[in-house]
């Protein structure tokens, strides 16, 4: 006595029709599908599906129009370039943040410190009032000394040069003239 084997439902058959034609079903599904072909008009349905498949395979492959090919390739290159730039920019930004920016910041800081050290001097403490007073006394003494040097030098020149060699002989000559004027 044969075991009872109900026919697979119609939608089950419909879902596996193309798979059966392409040989994609499992052995159990293939056996069950073939049992389902014995009823209704599944055999005619199968033949119709196989005919459509064979007709489609026989059709010539359509060629892509050249302008479509160019547009597609252009878009593909554009997208590839954009992707490359995006990755490169991200990489540089990452490197900049990690190394170049801190290094440049340090270099600028060092340069600023060097320039500041060269240009500015440490602030000198303001002289105390007593120091200023003492310096003023020194300045006045220096001016007095200069004036005294000039005075003494002038007196020396007057005494040693003018009196000795000019006024003295002139006085003597005038005195001799007064006492003994020429006739």
């Amino acid at each position: 006595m044969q075991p009872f084997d109900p026919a697979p439902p119609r939608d089950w058959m419909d879902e596996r029709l193309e798979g059966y034609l392409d040989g994609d079903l499992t052995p159990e599904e293939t056996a069950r599908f073939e049992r389902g072909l014995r009823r209704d008009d599944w055999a005619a349905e199968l033949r119709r599906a196989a005919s459509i498949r064979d007709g489609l395979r026989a059709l010539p492959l359509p060629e892509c129009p050249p302008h479509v090919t160019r547009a597609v390739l252009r878009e593909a290159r554009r997208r590839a370039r954009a992707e490359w730039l995006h990755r490169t920019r991200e990489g540089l930004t990452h490197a900049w943040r990690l190394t170049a920016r801190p290094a440049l910041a340090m270099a600028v800081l060092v340069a600023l410190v060097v320039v500041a050290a060269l240009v500015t001097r440490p602030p000198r403490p303001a002289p105390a009032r007593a120091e200023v007073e003492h310096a003023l006394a020194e300045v006045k003494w220096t001016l007095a000394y200069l004036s005294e040097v000039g005075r003494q030098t002038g007196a020396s020149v007057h005494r040693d040069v003018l009196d000795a060699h000019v006024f003295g002989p002139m006085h003597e000559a005038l005195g001799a003239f007064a006492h003994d004027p020429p006739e």
Partner: protein
Amino acid sequence: MRIRTLFLALILLGPTGAVHAQDRLEDAPGYVDLRTFEAWFDASPTLEVSVKGPLLRLVAEASRYDDPDLAEMLAGLRAIQVRGFPLRRSDFDEVARRASEMADRLEARGWDTVIRVRKDDEQVDMHVKVQDGRIAGMVVMVVQPGYDETVFLNIVGEIDPEQIGRLGRKFNIGRLEDW
């Protein structure tokens, strides 16, 4: 943009260092380094005056109320320096010879001789440096035996000898320690 601004600031700051270097007192035409004279003596100076830079400006301001003429004169100066040394009579000839040589070197460098006195026990030289029609410096060398009778003096800046003489006569000369 920020980096460009930063480099511009560095470029602007750079020349200020050069300008500062050019303003050194030692480079002034009327300046003479008195350490040259210190090398002639074994002893340290018995008299030392060094008023320059900010201290000189403060001295000028301090005298403005009591003596405006003095303040005006000091405002044109950059330095006043004096060194006094003890000199034995036995060393007079040697120091006098060196002072004469220094006077010759100053003349060779464009200093004009104002006073030159030569005696057996006294030698006086006064020179002025003229630049652009103005006196930019004065050097006085007095060589005389005594405790602090040998004096070397340098004034740097715009000098008016008449003004110095007029102002100096107001102050009584004595020993600096007594001031």
